[in-house]
């Protein structure tokens, strides 16, 4: 929650209305869910096969990536994907316990998690440093580029956009699956 509030504050500074609304609503949703669970609407069911998810993500990437950058098909498809994912997770039964069905283990981070945390914090600090050295919140800087400044020119390429969209949707599907079955690992996955 503190991270979300900090991110919300940044978007208020940047005056990005959409981002402020989305982040603000998420804070509200988390707050509501903490005190009053959303009604469970869907029973636990078999997950969608991975090959079908991959095929769907590729199809999504190709079809939506072929449309204009920031056009209405992209906006609508991304909005629908996000709402569908949130709906699926919000309506799922309380956090699963893993395959054994026993109670969830006490919340203790695995050993070595600091390595990941350290690298991600480093990336966040570099991004923040670049952002703060921009001429203003809405204008990128060539000398101190943020990730957005570096990646957005690449998204002008249709092929790159298709690949990126497919990866984005596949990542979302993985995330939803992991939310519905936390602690579970797909068969055959190592460690």
């Amino acid at each position: 929650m503190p991270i979300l509030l900090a991110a919300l504050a940044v978007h208020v500074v940047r005056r990005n209305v959409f981002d402020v609304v989305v982040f603000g609503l998420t804070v509200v949703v988390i707050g509501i869910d903490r005190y009053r669970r959303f009604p469970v609407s869907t029973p636990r069911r078999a997950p969608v096969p991975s090959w079908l998810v991959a095929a769907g993500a590729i199809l999504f990437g190709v079809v939506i990536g072929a449309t204009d950058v920031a056009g209405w098909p992209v906006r609508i498809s991304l909005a629908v994907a996000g709402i569908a994912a949130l709906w699926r997770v919000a309506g799922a039964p309380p956090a699963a316990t893993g395959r054994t069905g026993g109670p969830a283990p006490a919340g203790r981070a695995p050993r070595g998690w600091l390595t990941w945390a350290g690298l991600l914090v480093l990336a966040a600090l570099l991004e923040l440093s670049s952002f703060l050295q921009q001429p203003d919140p809405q204008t990128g800087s060539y000398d101190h580029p943020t990730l957005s400044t570096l990646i957005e020119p690449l998204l002008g390429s249709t092929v790159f956009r298709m690949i990126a969209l497919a990866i984005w949707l596949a990542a979302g599907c993985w995330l939803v699956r992991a939310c519905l079955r936390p602690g579970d690992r797909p068969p055959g996955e190592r460690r």
Partner: protein
Amino acid sequence: MSSHLITVLAYALIAALLVAVELVARFGTARVPTLGSLLRGALRHRAAQFGLLLAWWWIGWHFFVG
């Protein structure tokens, strides 16, 4: 060396380190969890579920819609 190049190299170094840590977690002997297992552990918590879903959604909106 320009500021632009230094910044780009810094991002590239962090990306390379992230890949290296994942490879070590999967194939090495160090006791480092894979990113997937770390996320699955975090996703036992409701707030983390919503937070990570939001992050995923926001990344898509930010880069593909702008």
